[in-house]
């Protein structure tokens, strides 16, 4: 899978986009600990929880993509279409992040029921609470996650989907941990630059996904599977 390094990079850069939403969680987790070492352990456990959720979601998306590809007539190239869809979604998210276009509708102020669950874990002290906070954070609505999930579905393979989302999750670790540790390691100006770089990185990932989808259109439906490292043994 050529995209994996790019997915990882998008994870790294894209997570600076996520700090607006998830950064406070990382800070909340760190606020209880005494030393930075203890904080680091808590941050890593929290991230493991997030990656776990991303992985399960990725596996589910891959599985769903697989079943979809199977159940539809072979004329319809499901992986290619999903790849193009994911690409468009990513480009849209990236362009939103650059601020080139503005979202017309404001986010509805729906009461967040999951908030009270998450809050309880975030303010907990045990490693168990950290892990569960991470698991639930992974479920929070996030455009970037959805875009990569569409990409995972596009692999039409459960294991490839899980791998893709795990790599994406790992990519988000450095900045989330850095935020949780220091919060102010980077100046506001440099964070703004990083934010812009992240936006463009997401757009590039989107374009590549579209390109991949277009290229697949001409090939055999199950070609995408050959990219999966797990499946070579079986075939």
């Amino acid at each position, binding site marked *: 899978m050529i995209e994996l390094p790019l997915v990882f990079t998008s994870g790294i850069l894209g997570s600076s986009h996520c700090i607006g939403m998830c950064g*406070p969680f990382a800070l909340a987790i760190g606020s209880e600990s005494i030393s930075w070492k203890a904080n680091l352990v808590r941050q890593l456990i929290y991230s493991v929880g997030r990656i776990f959720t991303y992985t*399960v979601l990725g596996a589910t998306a891959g599985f769903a993509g697989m079943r979809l590809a199977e159940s539809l007539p072979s004329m319809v190239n499901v992986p290619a279409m999903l790849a193009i869809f994911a690409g468009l979604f990513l480009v849209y998210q990236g362009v939103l992040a650059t601020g080139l276009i503005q979202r017309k509708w404001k986010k509805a102020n729906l009461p967040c029921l999951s908030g009270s669950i998450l809050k309880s874990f975030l303010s907990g002290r045990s490693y168990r609470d950290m892990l569960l906070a991470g698991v639930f954070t992974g479920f929070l609505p996030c455009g970037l996650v959805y875009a990569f999930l569409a990409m995972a579905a596009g692999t039409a393979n459960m294991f490839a989907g899980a791998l893709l989302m795990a790599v994406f999750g790992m990519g988000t670790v450095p900045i989330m941990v850095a935020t949780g540790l220091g919060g102010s390691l980077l100046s506001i100006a440099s964070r703004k630059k990083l934010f812009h770089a992240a936006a463009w990185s997401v757009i590039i990932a989107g374009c590549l996904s579209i390109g991949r989808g277009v290229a697949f259109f001409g090939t055999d439906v199950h070609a995408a599977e050959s990219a999966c490292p797990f499946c070579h043994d079986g075939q």
Partner: protein
Amino acid sequence: MTNSFRPSDSCVYCGLPVAPSNAEDRVYCCLGCRIADSLQARGDETAQNRWALAKLGIAIFFAMNVMMFTMALWSWDVYDISGDTALVLRDLLRYACMAFASPVLILLGGPLFESAWDSLRKNQITTDQLLAIGVIAAFAYSTFSLLKSQQHVYFEVACMILIAVTVGRWMEATGKLKANQALQSMQKLLPEQVRRIGPTSDQTVELHQVEIGDLVRVLPGERIPLDGILVDSAGDVDEQIVTGESQPVCKSTGDGVVGGTLNLSTEKQIRVTSTVQGGMIQRMMNSVAASLEAKTPEQKLADRLTHWFVPAVALLAAFTFASHYHAAGFQSALMSSLAVVLIACPCALAIATPLALWAAMGLAAQRQVLFRNGDALGKLAKLNALCFDKTGTLTSGAIRVKSVEFSDSLVTPADAEFVWTVAHWLSAGSSHALATAIRMDARARDANNRQFEPTGQREERSGQGVLGLFANGDQAALGSLRFLLELGFKVSPALQEIHDQATAPTTCIGWNRQVQAVFLFDESMRPEAAEAMDQLRRLGLHLEILTGDRQHRAAAIANQLGMQFQAELLPNDKLERIKQMRQQRGAVGMVGDGINDAPALAEADLGLALDCGADVSRDAADICLLGSTLERLPWMIQLARKTKRTIRQNLFWAFAYNVVGIGLASSGMLSPIFSAVAMVGSSLFVIGNSLRLTANAPETASSNHDALMPPASVTHSQLESKDNRSLADLASVK
């Protein structure tokens, strides 16, 4: 909320009817209410609550693993793996499924089985029992299949049912808690600890330890803990919470103060006159709580449906099982009947109406609008016409005496003083706005301290005036000229002339069968009246003034507001007019101060009383507004209409979902996994749709209440971090 007055055949938490039982004093309609009640009783952050949440979290973590393994098993056919490695791998995955599913069963099964067993003992059939049977069946069958045969395993189904049920009920409980939050936030206004003044020094005691007659000390900036009388010293108090008026009120010694109001200036000593339970805040909360229990027609229908729903679903599930067993074997039968039970869970149906009503009434209570019953909200949405009392309703409540014109026979200052003395005595017999104005003025003239021995025989004639007897048996009267003339009093041409020419309301006083003086008042329209009437008209309501005041006076106000009017009405005329209007236009509402127009308020389809203040249980009115700002009227009507829409959407959704879902499930076309997800989704829709009322509530012009009590959505959506500075810092990046 107080639960003390609930009968034992209704749910302790939400008041839904449940089959009567004598086994236990606390009964619940569903697991959701059980959770909500325990959360409320224990407070939000206790160890037990955390553990309950942690259990759910751990179970979800394990269930996610089970899903992964199961999906891997489901992928078998695609990858076409064969050979020994494949068989070992397959067995490994199946055992892993069981290993990871067992903790889910242990963690989440307990409460479900307990609840199912509880209702079984009470001879009730509930969905909890059906679900418990389903979980046990799926788990037992899978274990048997794993150990003895090589059939499919359904551990993931058992996990999903448990998680869906627990998450669904958790959300339901949180939703109920949120809908109740307005009431909770009122109670939270009362300080937990009180500074009681002892014989030698102050002691800090718990709020409930304070007794009637105790002296408490309240510092500036603190909330007054209990209702009482100000002993020392005079100063400003913010009474917005009970009156809705944002202007501070200056209290002097001897004045009553209300628990929950904010002491703005000076240290105050207060003689406590009521306990927490008897306090005004508690009475307001009781009034709302009582209104939550009154059933709307829709709610009664939903209750009835829920009653036969569960047995019907049990039958249908049994039938589905039997028919699929016959046609396709045990596995298919088990899965189809499980799907039926899951999809038919009537949670969404049961909460569709109450949750929306609770959310709306809670929101209204935050704005000092108290519904006396749930039906009032529905009636408010249906109103076609709204009638207004004029004095004190459309015009400012603070009416003042402008001048007094005496009859020619009264010439000396002593005569004038006697008029004030009699006026003070008679006006004390009525709480009409004009009588109150006279009483205030008389008191300012020290008329209450003069030597005067009335018989104490005094009687108010509703909407007309007050009649009293002097010690010598002479009649004295205060009221409209018409009232005095009907009593046989004579009026001099000069006073008649003054009365007829007045552009403001007037009141006459008389004795010795003579009208002795005419009081002229200053009456100004409420500043917000025009805007409020405009908005009401845009909402499609017919507006009309019904007043006992004179024609040209009513016309002046009506023209300014662009309303129709009926003047010089006696209380009975008002009733007639309302009846007549009902025939012409449908549902009629009446807005008044709830005292002298009580008959009209009671006759109207919906009575709204302004300025209820301490008297929240005013019987004639269906809705009580604390304070008297009119701009809340259009807001209320919008809220009521929105709530009604929401309830309809909820009921439609719940019914449609159940009908379609049951159809699909009983024909075996729906996997239990999707049923479980759909069940949670359906409840989520109803909860989200209902709480949307509080999130996007129509705004009133004066939103100064918000500073005091922020809407539910704001307080909860913020996930507080302890490092606020860094949060703000981060936010600025975005």
